[in-house]
């Protein structure tokens, strides 16, 4: 019974659903590892979602039927650019101006929520536009593996890239001098400072990177998952992404497990109802949220929250 619920296609769609969470949450992980909490992810996602869609729409040659590689490249490029700007702004507010990170995040969220919609109405008169987003790429050989092939290796580039980011994140954080600085700054900025490291510069980097990834998360929605833009289309995913960073206790792998758990359960609950199994829709919709909490209750807890999280740094003066 449960067997014919968990089909390859359900798992595949769960993996697709996980991509925006992965981008956003990995970005947030960098920020938090260096001691900066950014609740504004959702806003940046929306900005990225719109601008990338705009770029793809803009650069797709008129009358093109299929997707246009150049346009898609532009879409990603623009998303990165916008993420860069939003990220830098966030850094100025949280690092230089040492703003209370709880609120500044909400401010950035509201700004992005409004701004993305505003641009949408200004540029497209608010009319829903669809684009030809990233096409599925069947990885040679791998995609022919029975079942697994369909689940993992028949996704589009942005999906592959999101999962590729997991080991990359782990590597950067644990195997590079930069990663060492990031971890130190998040755990004990005073010590890092005393070793001649510029706490501010490190945090500027991580927060900006977080912005870029959040923006890509938006793009992965608008030009890869659904290929349209609508106001508030992220529907709270940015906040879930932040929660997932805590779920993964600041480790790339943990974050990925969180994103997968949440998204697979989501895909599964949709399947349950598509199958017409009789549970109230609302309860089914609750499942991912409930299970995420329960999973964390039973997960072996090795919490090492960055000691300086949300604490602005200023040399004793």
């Amino acid at each position, binding site marked *: 019974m449960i067997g014919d619920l968990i089909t390859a296609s359900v798992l595949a769609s769960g993996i697709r659903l996980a991509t925006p969470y992965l981008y956003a949450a990995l970005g947030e992980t960098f920020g938090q590892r260096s001691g900066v909490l950014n609740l504004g992810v959702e806003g940046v996602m929306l900005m990225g979602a719109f601008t990338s869609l705009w770029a793809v729409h803009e650069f797709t040659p008129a009358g093109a039927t299929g997707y246009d590689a150049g346009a898609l490249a532009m879409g990603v490029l623009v998303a990165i650019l916008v993420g860069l700007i939003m990220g830098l702004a966030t850094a100025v507010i949280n690092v230089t101006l040492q703003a209370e990170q709880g609120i500044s995040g909400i401010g950035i969220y509201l700004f992005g929520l409004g701004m993305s919609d505003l641009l949408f109405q200004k540029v497209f008169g608010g009319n829903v536009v669809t684009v030809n987003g990233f096409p599925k790429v069947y990885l040679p050989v791998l995609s022919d593996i029975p079942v697994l092939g369909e689940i993992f290796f028949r996704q589009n580039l942005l999906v592959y890239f999101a999962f590729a980011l997991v080991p990359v994140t782990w590597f950067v954080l644990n195997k*590079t*001098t930069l990663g060492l600085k990031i971890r130190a700054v998040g755990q004990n900025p005073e010590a890092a400072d005393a070793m001649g490291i510029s706490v501010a510069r490190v945090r500027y980097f991580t927060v900006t990177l977080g912005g870029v990834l959040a923006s890509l998360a938006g793009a992965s929605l608008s030009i890869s998952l659904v290929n349209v833009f609508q106001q508030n289309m992220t529907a709270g995913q940015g906040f879930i992404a932040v929660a997932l960073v805590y779920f993964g206790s600041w480790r790339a792998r943990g974050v990925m497990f969180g994103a997968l758990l949440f998204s697979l359960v989501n895909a599964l609950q949709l399947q349950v109802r598509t199958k017409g199994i009789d549970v109230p829709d609302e309860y089914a919709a609750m499942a991912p949220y409930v299970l995420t909490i329960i999973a964390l209750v039973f997960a072996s807890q090795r919490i090492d929250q960055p000691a300086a999280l949300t604490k602005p740094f200023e040399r004793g003066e």
Partner: protein
Amino acid sequence: MSTSSDERKLLPTGHERIDHLEMRGIVKRFPGVLAVDHVDFDVRAGEVHALLGENGAGKSTLMKILYGLYQANEGEIYLNRRKVTIKSPSDAIALGIGMIHQHFMLVPSLTVAENVALGLKSSREPLLDLDVVSARIEQLARTYGLQVDPSRPVWQLAVGERQRVEIIKALYRGAALLILDEPTAVLTPQEVDDLFATLRQMVQDGHALIFISHKLHEVLAISQRITVLRDGRVVGSVPTAQATKAELARMMVGREVLLTYDVPPVEPGPVRLKISGLRASSDRGTEALRGIDLEVRAGEILGLAGVSGNGQRELAEVIFGLRPATAGSVLLDGQDITGKSPAELNRLGMSYIPEERMLDGVIRDFTVAENLMLQEHAQRPYSYHIFLNPRAIAQRCANLIRNFNIRTPNQETPIKSLSGGNIQKLVLARELAREPSVLIAAQPTRGVDIGATEYIHQRLLEQRARGTATLLISEDLDEILALADRIAVIYEGEIVGVVDRAQAQVETLGLMMAGVRHETAAG
């Protein structure tokens, strides 16, 4: 690293030596405090220049200015007669200045090697080269006798080891001038000897050292020159050869200081605290206490000597209900109190002065008054039902501040801007004012100036006279020998022996602390 070809001027670390560094007319103001007041200070290659002063005298501040952590309001710094400006630690590091901070500047979650590599250029940027770093660490360790395991995470290290990591960090960066701010405050006698060996080695190599300590005998043992600060001003600078403890003490405190006390005999009363077969595990899950048996009588001070990390902290925490006992029991006046909550134990008249006072003893962001009320706030007359009674509280705090002469602008000052010595006094005041029947004091005078130390010792003896049963946990043998009626030595979670002070000699204690059992005095 220097490009100077003149070999004679180079240190083993390859860095150019600092022949002379001078600070002139340094002034530093903090909100409400004039921390450093027109201070002149200098140090030369191949010497140890000691800096003495009461808590809050301005030692750390002066040094933080030299290391670029604070900017002076006035004054200049000259390196080899050349004027330099030090805007940040990286400037200082570049000039060959290193600093061992009073409060360790290490990242607990990182390994030793990572802590050392932090901020250094890697040989294969952007990747880490921890293997290279580890190799170099071991090399330095050999040259200066600083044993550490580069791969251990710092949170697993004992304070002594952390101290070494700090020194290695400085040497690794080729520090030609090394500032040591109270490096011995947390070290055992053995560790101090090791440290001094290292320092002498460095002096020979031509390093310049600045050494801060509250322990006069250390200063006399290691330094060539001594400068004394009081209230941010230099009260004198003398060659060590011509200095005496008593004179230095007078310079620091501005009055005569008792350096040894006569301990009036007190007839020990009934057994207050009885610990039998106590076992417990450490934060790392290893067994920290392996069957402890101890008795403390009313009107007695039982000194617990031992190298730090042998279970002292765990013992105190188990007794005070902060850590579960895996076996054994603790009796207070015959009543079993094993596993009771700190709240209950407070009520039963037990009192605990924790070792990590900044972390466990006080709330940095709370005011002096709020910190003084941590236990009492819920009792009459300080509160009725749930409502606090500000007048009564102010009353009490005023008294405590007066009686224990805690140096603070007023009751509403956040204690984080008090000097550590004063913070320590505050904790002591809070605990002793409750006239506890059992007192557990862990390192009560660590990092505290001699004036305050004398003062605290007097208080402990007063309590003893009052009939308090005191468990004095200390790594400072002088302190224990000065105060304790009996001395128990702990090693790897076991009591290796208990001796009366009468028969106690430093040598035997030293052996016991190294784990050698003491048959004759199996208490």
